[in-house]
């Protein structure tokens, strides 16, 4: 299990593009096709947006991204030091109820094969894992 890339940025909107660049490069290097790379960039971006908007909710703090290349999947680990979040606190809205907002969770779940919160070494903050399997290995959550 090799950690390919690490990035730490302040949880602020102007740093999202750095996160997207790391995801793009890692996903391309892993061998995903153009459309899939584009989707992975979106999903990780949305998860980090949620950390900024809902996790830190305006406070300062770091976002750490780690890319782990596994034989059958690429994994993006997003670590924050915001208040602990339960998975069920993610409220995806009904897409038929058209209103601004409420799309990020939907994008993340649609794009990724596995979404889960892992333990953090020191029991603070959150560690979100987003996995995408290689074509043919897909297991939908």
């Amino acid at each position, binding site marked *: 299990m090799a950690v390919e890339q690490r990035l730490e940025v302040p949880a602020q909107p102007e740093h*999202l593009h750095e996160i997207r660049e790391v995801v793009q490069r890692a996903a391309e290097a892993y061998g995903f096709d153009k459309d899939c790379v584009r989707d992975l960039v979106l999903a990780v971006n*949305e998860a980090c947006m949620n950390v900024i908007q809902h996790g830190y909710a305006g406070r300062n703090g770091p976002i750490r991204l780690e890319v782990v290349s596994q034989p059958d999947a690429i994994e993006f680990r997003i670590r924050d030091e915001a208040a602990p979040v339960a998975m069920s606190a993610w409220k995806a809205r009904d897409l038929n109820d058209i209103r*601004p907002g409420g799309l990020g969770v*939907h994008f993340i779940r649609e794009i990724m094969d596995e979404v889960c919160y892992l333990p953090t070494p020191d029991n603070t903050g959150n560690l979100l894992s987003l996995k995408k399997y290689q074509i043919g290995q897909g297991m939908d959550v």
Partner: protein
Amino acid sequence: MTAEVKMEQDYAVVCLSGEIDLHSSPQGRKLILACLHDGRPTLVDLSAVSYIDSSGVASLVEGFQLARERKLDFALVGVSAAALNVLKLARLDKVFPIYANVQARLAAV
């Protein structure tokens, strides 16, 4: 992202280009809503959009809803492949009126 407004007949055409994300979308949103608050039918040109996230899509939905409230025409034009992909993920590609380009919309009025 860059955002600019041109006038075409009585229409405001808001051209957004580059990456529309949480950092840049507030600027595009403001422009779109300003045109509608001015009472203008508004087209949003997404032909040069290389990336759009859910905050960008939210701005478009806000414009769409304000236009309906004000009974003003609102449509997306020249939607790039990158933008269309995200609209499809959001199941909004059938909700927004979408035209190939500004002319196509004006011709249809």
